[in-house]
């Protein structure tokens, strides 16, 4: 049966590629490709379920192939199917099919009909990859795909300000989760001394023996997964991204942010359960987070006066309960709960515009004016306080801003004395010297060698922070991103036995991307367009193709799956030793920021309201 598994990944990817062919007006073929993918999946799923059932519901494992192999590291594609996958994937197939049917005429004549279905298929490919992943590396590929397609689903209306702003906001958090996932993988590598598969985790685990114990890993591995799962499932304190993700057409918000995407955290918790299920403190932490989220989200949902936001928070509240269920080991209940919540919220979101006439009608016949609020007792005052906090979403949105971006901005702004030009003049020679010296690394003093990688990574981090806060020419920020990437490579080169092949692979991805980027700026500037980053320029209105080219370059630069940089990134973490937490932290931070900096450059240049006003321009507040 397990031979069927790879087809589940191939079909949507093929469908996605196929869906790029028709033009935007060819709505029928576009829809048919999408529906074809899901129907094929449905048929495959039925076949698989029958075969799987006849074989006694044994977990299926498809040992894949090495995507990349080197002396010290593998990147293996590996697939897995158990009842968690079965439930999640069944719900995914059913919902996706229905939402595709819904969207067929719903999206009719949108400027981005094709873009919509492309994104849905891409997202769906990512989701399928996650659900069928047999190891963390495979899962990471799906994870990244979801991150990128989320950005485009949220910023679907790319000529308006709020969707673009919120897409950046959401994807920033996603990026944090991605890097924590990368950390988790790195930690697991060092702990297990191999790429652990879910099959091994689920089946080779001796009953009741904690898999990890007694080491620092007992804390770091679960915590890394904790952050990833809490971000993705919008648990405290990350909840506020979910309502802000509902910027696209209602049908895509309904399926992904209302149901599928937001439950992925629960999936990850179930997957990693063997890693932490005997760790009492972690179970308590999970339960506490789940309950706290559920209470807070329910309160927020009570006071929300906008329909979609209300549904988003009700969904978060239920997911909080699911977190508790998973922690308690009640996975069957959690899976049921997931299915129910996914269906219910999708439905509620899809029909959310109906609420207006439904409730007005209700009000017409049943309205009774509410009681006046009192303020005389402590209890009443407490109630009023809770109301105000809930209206402000318990400041979660501003908290994210302060916690995540303010520090970066402050650091970035504190190094403004260093201009981009200066940076290039100082660090490029430094870099060249570094490259020359790396071939003589044996002759360098041991002390220097120990600290050099960290120092280089620190330079890299500074560069990227600077790129992130840059407000002037895009070219400067772009250069900083590239220089930063080069230093990461150099840091690795000094860290271990230098393997030119791996670093070259990493660099090859960067150099192509870099060139396309520079070419883009050149084209824009030559025709008198602004490439400043101090506002959204919206160039995709006039130059949609250039925008796509730059986007691909950008994705290459930040190590999107299947690009060489991605494999490079994964390998790089493979070269960080298990005691080098500082180095790992710095490289991780650099990777987060490098993604954000590139998303930001892309968004500022190509998205948002167009700077020219000869045509219809949206209000900033819309």
């Amino acid at each position, binding site marked *: 049966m397990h031979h069927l598994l790879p087809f589940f990944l191939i079909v949507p990817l093929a469908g996605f590629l196929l869906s790029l062919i028709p033009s935007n007006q060819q709505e029928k073929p576009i829809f048919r490709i999408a529906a074809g993918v899901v129907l094929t999946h449905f048929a495959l799923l039925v076949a698989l379920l029958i075969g799987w059932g006849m074989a006694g519901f044994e977990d299926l494992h498809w040992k894949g192939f090495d995507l990349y192999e080197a002396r010290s590291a593998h990147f293996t594609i590996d697939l897995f199917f158990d009842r968690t996958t079965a439930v999640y994937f069944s719900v995914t197939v059913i919902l996706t099919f229905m939402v595709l049917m819904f969207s067929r*005429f719903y999206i009719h004549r949108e400027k981005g009909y094709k873009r919509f279905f492309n994104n849905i298929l891409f997202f769906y490919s990512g989701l399928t990859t996650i659900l069928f992943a047999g190891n963390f590396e495979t899962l990471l590929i799906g994870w990244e795909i979801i991150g990128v397609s989320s950005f485009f689903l949220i910023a679907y209306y790319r000529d308006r300000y709020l969707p673009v702003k919120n897409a950046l906001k959401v994807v920033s958090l996603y990026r944090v989760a991605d890097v924590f996932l990368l950390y988790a993988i790195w930690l697991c590598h060092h702990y297990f001394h191999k790429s652990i598969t879910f099959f091994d985790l689920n089946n080779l685990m001796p009953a009741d023996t904690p898999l990890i114990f007694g080491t620092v890993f007992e804390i770091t591995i679960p915590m890394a997964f904790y952050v990833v799962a809490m971000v993705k499932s919008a648990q405290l304190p990350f909840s506020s991204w979910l309502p802000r993700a509902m910027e696209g057409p209602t049908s895509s918000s309904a399926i992904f942010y209302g149901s599928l995407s937001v439950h992925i955290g629960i999936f990850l918790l179930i997957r990693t359960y063997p890693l932490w299920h005997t760790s009492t403190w972690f179970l308590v932490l999970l339960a506490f987070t789940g309950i706290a989220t559920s209470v807070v989200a329910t309160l927020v949902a009570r006071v929300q006066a906008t329909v979609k936001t209300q549904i988003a928070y009700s969904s978060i509240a239920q997911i909080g309960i699911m977190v508790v269920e998973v922690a308690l080991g009640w996975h069957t209940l959690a899976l049921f709960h997931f299915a129910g919540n996914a269906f219910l919220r999708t439905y509620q979101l899809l029909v959310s515009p109906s609420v207006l006439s439904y409730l007005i009608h209700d009000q017409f016949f049943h309205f009774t004016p509410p009681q006046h609020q009192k303020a005389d007792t402590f209890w009443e005052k407490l109630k009023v306080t809770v109301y105000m906090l809930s209206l402000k979403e318990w400041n979660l949105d501003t908290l994210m801003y302060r916690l995540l971006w303010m520090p970066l901005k402050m650091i970035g702004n504190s190094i403004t004395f260093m201009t981009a030009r200066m940076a290039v003049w100082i660090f490029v020679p430094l870099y060249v010297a570094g490259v020359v010296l790396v071939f003589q690394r044996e002759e360098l003093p041991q002390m220097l060698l120990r600290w050099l990688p960290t120092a280089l990574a620190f330079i890299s981090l500074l560069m990227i922070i600077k790129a992130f806060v840059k407000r002037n020419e895009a070219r400067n920020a772009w250069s900083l991103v590239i220089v930063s990437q080069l230093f990461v490579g150099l840091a690795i080169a000094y860290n271990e036995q230098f393997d030119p092949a791996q670093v070259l692979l990493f660099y090859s991805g960067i150099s192509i991307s870099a060139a396309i980027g520079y070419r883009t700026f050149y084209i824009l500037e030559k025709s008198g367009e602004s490439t400043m980053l101090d506002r959204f320029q919206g160039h995709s209105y006039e130059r949609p193709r250039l925008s796509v080219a730059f986007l691909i370059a950008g994705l290459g630069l930040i190590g999107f799956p299947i690009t060489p940089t991605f494999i490079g990134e994964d390998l790089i973490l493979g070269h960080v030793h298990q005691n080098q937490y500082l180095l790992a932290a710095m490289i991780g931070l650099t990777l987060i920021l490098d993604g954000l900096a590139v998303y930001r450059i892309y968004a500022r240049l190509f998205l948002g309201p167009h700077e020219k006003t000869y045509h219809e321009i949206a209000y900033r507040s819309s």
Partner: protein
Amino acid sequence: MEKHSSRIFNEAHVLHQLEHYLPSQTPLKDFVHHNSLHAFQDQKFYDAIFKASKMFGFQVTIQLNEFRKLYKINRIRREILESVIKERKGEQHLDAWLQKALQQQYDYNIEPRIGRLRALWKSHYHIDLDNLVQPLLFRILCSFLDQGVALWNFPFEEKGLLGAIRTLEQNSFAGFIHGKRARKLLMDSSLELADLLKIVAGDEAFFEQYLFDQQFAHRGWSGMVATVEHRPESLLYAKNISLRELIHLELIMEIDALDRALGTEKWQPLALVAQAEPMDLFAEAAISEFHEVLMIWQDAFEWSYYDEVLAGLQHLKGFQSQTDEDIKDVSFQAIFCIDEREDSLRRHIEMVDKRSETLGAPGFFGVEFFFQPSGGKFYEKLCPAPVTPKYLIKEKETGPHHRKRELLYTKRSHTMLQGFVITLSLGLWAAVKLFLDLFRPKMSPAISDAFAHMNMDAELQIESADPPTMENGLQLGFTVTEMADRVENLLRGIGMAERFARIVYMVGHGSSSANNPHHGAHDCGACSGRPGAVNARVFAFMANHAKVRELLSARGMHIPAGTRFVGALHDTAADEIAFYDADVLPQQLAKAHEQHQNAFEEALNLNAKERSRRFASIDTQADIKKVREAIRRRSVSYFEPRPELGHGTNALCFVGHRGLTKGLFFDRRAFMNSYDYRTDPDGRLLLNVIRPLPIVCGGINLEYYFSRVDNYKLGAGTKLPHNVMGLIGVANSSDGDLRPGLPLQMIEVHDPVRLLILVEHYPDVVLKTIGAQDDLYDWFKDEWVHLVAIHPDTNDFYYFKNEAFYLYKPVKESVERADDVHYLLESAKEMETNYIVDATQENLPVHILTE
């Protein structure tokens, strides 16, 4: 508007100005179409739109390159373009202006006056003030105005917006305002706006500009607040709020945000950092050559169509096989709303039953009243928006409207523990329900159902007691004289004083649609955006009333005793019809009615087919029954953002007898008001007939026009991401501004042309009639609608311009003909995209139907 010479800040005056310019759309439960640029209507059309554009950055015509493309595909005709240029610029400048129109390059970027002062927050202080203030401000406003989304009401709302916020701040351990200074300002109830403006703007001379910048940064919310303030009855759950309070609160929030970002009192008001003098927002906008080119193109675009219409009218005479007068033995008469969506149904009915006769009158049928369904806690107005009725019609108590509840809409699913039970129990049901909704869509409680507005079999209290009883200042029902007045007015107005068939149908209209916050915009405009069933029934009752008929006879209007009026409702989305009180028809008539019903059904089939050509989901060539079923399903499909296309494409309004237009195919673009000049030689009735047309039809037309030319700023944008805010409006995001105007899906078929009203009467009579009232006259004088008088004797056309009528000879020499309307519909091309140049090609030219 008075001129602003002084720079002294007058709070009342500025508030009044703001209210004048802000959008005036009411909460979405009611939808009354109006001119989106009503604030500029005291000026001539072109002056007004270019001024609005300069002030607020709106696009006010389609783009120059789009006009040029329309010219290339001959949608704008060369001869019309030339004649427009000749008329505007003189023959000698024809070539020069042709070159300008066709080739000259212009810079068409608009640099609006609005927003420049407050842009200094960003450019000078590097602070994004709107981002810091708006999200919370919108949340507060939305929650305060919320009609019933949240499960928890805004505390202390009875104290008004500011009062509530003050009480909240005093009585809670959290706060919306954090800084010491801002809190002190908030609590000081003696402060005027000027005191706060002094802090942010500094110099009094900048106050007005600052407030305009600030309020127009979120014109949706500000407009809603101003509207609710002045029309509290537009909400069922009344709210105590004013624009002044909103501004007061916003200024304090701004001060708070600035203090926090820049340090308390460490920043200077904008007047001190502004390099320029305060700007006069209201100064007249210079008309540039580019604007003149746009005017030429807009005129040419409009006249390319009007000319074709007039040519059609001219050529029709030779083809008409029969007109009303020729029908000897009329089988039935049907009076429809003037709505342009009824144009096609009327055509089909006349074709199905050649002896039938159709007429058009505004869909409230001249009876104005409030309506209260049984069990309802409020009244609904059923007449044009500007009218305030003195009457109340109630459903007799039959128990409340029984509407089933929709399980999945329960608010309980938003609580934690009940939500837990519901997700586990109803979750799977949601999947099943979704499946059914997709593949077997059917009417459900959550879908707005035009027929559910009134209980089908409810008894109405139409006749008042003697003496009349009053309820809340309204008279319950109409007296016999009041009924007779209304029946007489309507029938005489549409020229129906003599010939009566045995059955006269009064066909109101409404629209059913699913998942559509804008459903009110599809209902009857003459009934304040509600279905017209009650009016149709009420009118039929009045006209059937024996005492009313006696009184009418005395006044010289003899309705034969055998004639019965029957009320009906046409659902323009589902293409279904329902007849009211038909069961009490005498047996003979009941039989005839049955036959007519069949005719209506057949006509509805054809109507469905005609409409289906614009719908991608329906194959127009399929079996007609299937097409009809598909049309019905659309109206109850959640996934269909275009249950119908509303007033899209409207462009014409006929005032005249049916013979004028019978046999012409207008592709549902014409409002049609029946009127017979012969019964009204001196135009006494005409004034009442014409008076509502500019405001109702012109209002519809201009709202479509502006939503089409700038769907981002004047329209509501695409519906697909809309989020319902507090049951009063829609916004795009959880933190977005309200979006007044029409959504993209409603306007994409619309050609942005002004309404052409065509009146069949002597030009001097028409001139005298429209001149009788200034506000009526201004619509025509200032060119917000076009007017053509059709000379009844010569059939010549007289165009109204510069306050006089001029003879117009159609340029177009031949008119398209169609001997098979089915073929015409089946072969029509569907638009490739909704870009104007593609979209307009879906609109068919005027045809003479020769079958």
